[in-house]
């Protein structure tokens, strides 16, 4: 075994504190269980500690995401049964769009929005959720995925448009909710 230097503990801790939550949110897109997600992300950081000599602390996001994604997809493969179950239940939820009316509960709207996000094309969803669920800036997303900021920008626009189309029947309800909550200033 080659002699390896331990990483700078302060740098390492700062790295964990900054990125832990977002990576956990990222993993939650692949695995259901919060405990499994914790386990996966913690192992990613343990590996970084062990291989600190190979890790670029100045530009950590690309590796963090690549490693986390690998670990999460392999964990998800192992949980195929659960994933299949999740898929089937997602499909079974009735598309109530036509009958959605003013007293539709907010919970149902949330569920519809979550489904609409899940239904985005893969790359589009990845980019959208990296921004919305993991708090990455356009620039950070572009660097992690090796894309231009312009592409990220386009995909974010596409996501929004697609959400609007998919949620069209619900949007009427949303208006009702807004009006009910009082008119917002222009």
């Amino acid at each position, binding site marked *: *075994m*080659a002699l390896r230097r331990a990483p700078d503990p302060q740098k390492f*801790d700062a790295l*964990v*504190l900054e990125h*832990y*939550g*977002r990576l*956990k*949110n990222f993993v939650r897109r692949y695995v259901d269980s*919060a405990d499994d*997600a*914790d386990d996966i*992300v*913690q*192992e990613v*950081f*343990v590996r970084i*500690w*062990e291989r600190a000599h190979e890790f670029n602390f100045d530009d950590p996001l690309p590796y963090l995401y*690549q490693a986390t*994604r*690998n670990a999460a*997809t*392999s964990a998800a493969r192992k949980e195929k049964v659960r994933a299949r179950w999740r898929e089937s239940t997602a499909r079974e939820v009735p598309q109530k769009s036509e009958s959605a009316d003013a007293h539709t509960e907010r919970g149902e*709207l*949330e569920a519809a*929005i979550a489904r*609409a*996000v899940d239904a985005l094309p893969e790359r589009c969803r990845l980019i*959208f959720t990296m*921004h*919305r*669920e*993991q*708090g990455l*800036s*356009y620039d950070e997303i572009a660097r992690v995925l090796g894309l231009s900021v312009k592409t990220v*920008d*386009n995909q*974010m*626009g*596409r*996501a*929004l*448009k697609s*959400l*609007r189309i998919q*949620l069209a029947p619900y*949007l009427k309800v*949303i*208006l009702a*909710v*807004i009006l009910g909550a009082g008119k*917002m200033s*222009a």
Partner: protein
Amino acid sequence: MIGSPEPDYALIARVFADEATAAEREELEQWIRKSSDHDILVRRLHTVWAQTGVVIEGDAHHALAEIHSRIARRRSAPTRILLRSPYRWQPTAWAAAALVTLGLGSYTLRDRITWQRSATAEPLTQVATTSGQRATIQLSDGSTVTLSVSSRISYPRNFGGREREVQLEGEAYFDVKHDARVPFRVRTNHGVTEDVGTRFAVRAYRGEAASRVVVAEGKVAIAPHLVISAGDVALVTGTQSPVVEHHADVNRLMSWKDGTLEFVDLPLRDVVRDLERWYGESVKLNDPALGNRTITASFNDAPLSDVVAFIARVVDATVSNKAGSISLTPRINR
């Protein structure tokens, strides 16, 4: 929205995302003021947008403490790797299965009794490694075990004075403190290996047709009347009599314990399975014929990408690594 031009969704997203310049924000403001439909649309979209934001969860400080304790565990005390709660074997079923495969009719009763006794007397400790991990375990009798990657061993915290028995799935190297009165036995799904005081390794991964016993020093009984000694390698299956090879290169077969990944004339399909155990990532062969090619190589602490690149050169294949999944494809023009 009749007659309105298509909204600039990217611009709207940019403003929502706080990625817009002041000029772009102003542009959107003006567009909104043009029509109440625009206003309503942007409000609706913003409601949707707000719903998609997930609060970043997870207590990062707590997680940090967890990560440091994992690091400490792994560095200082390998015996504590993935230590699971003590659990008990199903003694009768196991003993019966193992003994039938070895055909040790007369041993049956005694073994059942000892299994039951050890199961009730002392809960077993289990140590498991994942891919890329090895663990060294000190047993209560002073013997040491080096557990290879993706392996699992169970043993009583205290052997007591009458017998020493461990259960192995995967691969392990044993350096056994000799005690003629108390034999040391390794049970695998292919049978029982009984030590007569020695250094030896047992390999019995689930899904492999045979288990392998390699002896570096001393003597080992792999069946009641079959004793092999230093330099011997035995392949043991559940159904056929063991195959023994003498004067084998035992050091090579045990080099994994020093961190060397060694393949001797091994078909590629077995090589990739070992790589998976070692690195925790799967390597796929896009042509089954590749699986028959044999590899002889040794790697010391090399990254997976180097190992795969080397193998690809040997078998004349190309490597693709898409979305973290590695695969080998034969070159068409040989």
